[in-house]
């Protein structure tokens, strides 16, 4: 029997269809891998009983020829997604042991298509962070290490658990969410493929909100094809989310291997930062060369408002967050720390329930929305956002099909290494990714190489609204040229 955890979703799909193994066997292999990899702290809740029950039910369906597109595929679910009768915390103490009586739209579509839930994945508290260090369950460890070093590295964030688990072969794919780079940056740090779909492509219903106008769910997987398979099940219109778009979901997998000949690929000059590491520069040129070799045309483009994106993002996102997180007040669910008055109850509960980074952003958000500051901060940031959007619109209107950039300004860094004294140091991780959220566009991070310490690096492709297909076609070209990257297993022998 082949190694059940190192297969891609596409390979497992074939194996299951040929009855080379059962869904239950596949699930058991992953449950064993999860158990052996607890030191990575990728899962905050393992649901083996539910996983085996789901897998057994799928086997029965497969036997009757009724398996769905994801029949028997074991997945990890970011703890931001509400899962019915399964604890959902957003990795915040304030939700405590909250068990939702409802299932998010995205995950219910995965179960509809036959996927199996292995458990809930770690993330930065309320998805606020770029290293998965703000989780109340502690940091996630990246399966990748620097060559010749035992230093624990972060997997990026906020979807650090998702990226780490997929890279370490603990699950075949994972759900994730991206507000400023939370899918793409961890994907780049772990040599996985991460897709941030167009805003409105996936329903936000049942996903714990961080910043409503920026949040978007997407998959993390090991290949472009796997990501395409997952996205097809996750995407779709949901009448319960007014901001989701009523538009047919294409067969994304059909875009894999499609020719990119004649496509115009924009190389934005504003993404060439001062002091950018040479290896990032080199990776970017290599990526461009691969696409050119595949028949695409490279064009220099300008996105002049790029430099304002990060500061504007750190006004808009905290503003929305400060309001979205007001519901965690200790009154109806989650943590409650009593007080002598309702005001004290709020203060005690929120002081005990929220971590430092969440509190920082709630305070920033409250400040920028305050009377007298609204126009100077929030309103101005929204204007900047319009300009950023227009930059992209003009670029695409000139015939550009997609834009190629580095995914991150560096490779993964050590746990505790960044942001201790200055949060901006951490925020700069999202410098290449936030623009995409601000403009509501689709973006994909694909593994493209390694730095001189042997750590994975990723490239980002940014597409036209609802043109995820082009991103998959281009991502596949990079994947074919760069190859796939799997970290050596140092965390524990598999069962």
């Amino acid at each position, binding site marked *: 029997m082949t190694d059940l955890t190192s297969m891609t979703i596409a390979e497992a799909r074939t194996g299951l269809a040929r009855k080379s193994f059962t869904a239950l066997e596949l699930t058991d292999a992953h449950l064993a891998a999860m158990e052996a990899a607890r030191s990575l702290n990728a899962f905050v809740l393992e649901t083996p009983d539910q996983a085996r029950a789901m897998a057994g039910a799928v086997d029965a369906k497969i036997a009757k020829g009724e398996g769905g597109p994801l029949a028997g595929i074991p997945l990890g679910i970011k703890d931001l997604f509400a899962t019915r009768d399964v604890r959902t915390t957003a990795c915040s103490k304030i939700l405590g042991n909250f068990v939702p009586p409802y299932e998010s739209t995205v995950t219910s579509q995965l179960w509809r298509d036959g996927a199996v839930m292995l458990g809930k994945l770690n993330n930065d508290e309320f998805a606020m962070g770029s290293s998965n260090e703000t989780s109340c369950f502690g940091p996630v460890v990246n399966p990748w290490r620097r060559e010749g070093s035992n230093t624990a590295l972060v997997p990026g964030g906020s979807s650090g658990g998702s990226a780490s688990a997929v890279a370490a072969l603990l699950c075949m794919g994972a759900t994730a969410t991206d507000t400023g780079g939370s899918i793409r940056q961890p994907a780049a740090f772990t040599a996985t493929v991460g897709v941030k779909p167009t805003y409105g492509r996936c329903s936000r219903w049942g996903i714990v909100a961080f910043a409503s106008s920026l949040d978007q769910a997407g998959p993390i997987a090991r290949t472009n094809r796997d990501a395409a398979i997952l996205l097809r099940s996750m995407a779709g219109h949901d009448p319960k989310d007014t901001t989701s778009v009523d538009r047919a979901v294409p067969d994304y997998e059909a875009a894999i291997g499609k020719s990119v000949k004649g496509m115009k690929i924009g190389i934005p000059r504003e993404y060439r930062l001062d002091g950018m590491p040479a290896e990032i520069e080199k990776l970017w040129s290599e990526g461009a060369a691969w696409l050119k070799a595949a028949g695409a045309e490279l064009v220099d483009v300008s996105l002049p408002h790029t430099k304002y994106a990060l500061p504007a993002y750190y006004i808009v996102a905290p503003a929305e967050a400060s309001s979205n997180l*007001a519901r965690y007040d200790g009154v109806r669910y989650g943590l409650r720390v009593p007080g002598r008055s309702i005001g004290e109850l709020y203060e005690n509960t929120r002081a005990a329930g929220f971590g430092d980074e969440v509190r920082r952003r709630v305070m920033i958000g409250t400040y920028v929305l305050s009377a007298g500051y609204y126009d100077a901060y929030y309103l101005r940031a929204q204007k900047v956002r319009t300009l950023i959007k227009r930059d992209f619109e003009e670029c695409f209107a000139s015939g550009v099909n997609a834009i190629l950039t580095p995914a991150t300004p560096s490779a993964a860094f050590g746990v505790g290494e960044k942001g201790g004294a200055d949060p901006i140091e951490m925020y700069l991780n999202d410098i290449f990714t936030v623009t995409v959220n601000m403009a509501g566009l689709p973006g994909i991070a694909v593994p493209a190489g390694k730095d001189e310490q042997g750590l994975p690096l990723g490239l980002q492709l940014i597409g036209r609204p609802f043109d995820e297909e082009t991103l998959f076609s281009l991502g596949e070209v990079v994947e074919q040229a760069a190859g796939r990257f799997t970290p050596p297993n140092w965390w524990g022998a598999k069962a």
Partner: protein
Amino acid sequence: MNASVKPAKLIKGQTGDWEVVIGLEVHAQVTSKSKLFSGASTEFGGEPNSHVSLVDAAMPGMLPVINEECVRQAVRTGLGLNAKINLRSVFDRKNYFYADSPQGYQISQYKSPVVGEGEVVVELGGGHTVTVGIERLHLEQDAGKLLHDQSPTMSCVDLNRCGVALMEIVSRPDIRDAEQAKAYVAKLRSILRYLGTCDGDMEKGSLRADVNVSVRKPGGPLGTRCEIKNMNSINFIGQAIEYEARRQIEIIEDGGIIEQETRLFDPDKVETRSMRSKEEAHDYRYFPDPDLLPLEFTQSYVDELRSQLPELPDQKKARFIGGFGLSPYDAGVLVAERESADFYEAVLAGLADKARDGKLAANWVINELFGRLNKEGRDIAASPVSAAQLAAIVDLIGEATISGKIAKDLFEIVWTEGGDPRALVEARGMKQVTDLGAIEKVIDDIIAANPDKVAQAKAKPQLAGWFVGQVMKSSGGKANPQAVNDLLKAKLGI
């Protein structure tokens, strides 16, 4: 209409006359089956927390979805207020912490309301009117209700009302005294009830008002206003304004200044009390709700709704005056409440000759029926006399089958015993006697028996009334009064 603008009622202080300036924010609960952003029922009086959806309870990851029926009702109300309808409006979040607000914010409309400027013409006594400008109407969520009497150590919250749609209707500060304010709220309530967009039940809290009051020297600059919150009775609104205006005048005349603040009215002590000062006022940190797209609809949608609007009180009043010759006062009384107008319309529909008897029917509805209902403290819905029965009575008068006096007896019978008025008249021999021979005989008998009265009447024709009374008496009231008069005049030679 030939109504005139009544001069503002001034209040006399120690330093001269003062003018009161009043503006109202009326919160009207939208008539709809489900809440503004969730599918939960809006039914009144359920068990606490029995009409609460996951959205209303602000569970993690829940999203609001606009209820189109509430939008339709808001637009219809805007049309009824002769207001500008905004084809694009925006929902904002009004952020504040309180246990009756699970989201930690209320979804409202701040900068771009669904309805813009309009106006309401308000009738006052003596044929006067005042036109009150409407600044805006916006949609927003109602809050839950805190219950402080369920536990000695805790407060409880009932979220049944949480998320129910409200229309906040903001007037311009065009109102100048308590009477105008009361009349404005009554008129607004009447319009809403005609439209069926709010049931107007103030006792249940379906209609509440925040009243802004300030005082100034006539024609002078505006004074600092105080806002009296959450008034749920038209009479209390009047009392609160009277008290508040005098309170402010006293402070100013004593050399003090008015602090902008929010106040509450105590109906037992008939006074207003400070609730919170401007310094304590919330910073609501409004911003557009990112969970909701801007609310957009087309002009043809608005036109369609306009074409389906029911007749509103002003139009109905004009039709009653023009069509049936009602006095503006009577027409005003009939249209003030939708139920009264509907009843009168039903009577009209039952009349054999509307043009002839429409005005008579109005008199009967107002004087006899409403008079009797008021006396017995009954609602028009509980009237023992139906519109069809009243129409039949009016028909009998109009066609001269019975006299007005007999009609009152007949009304009494129908009120207490019920039955078909026409059949009752037949069965009980109440028909008016128009047989001139029969009447003549009665008159002859009375003249023969009372020669002295005949002499007096001939000298002083006004005394002929005595004969009329006698004739009517001996005919059991059934003699046609006109015929009696004519015959008497001829016989007595006056």
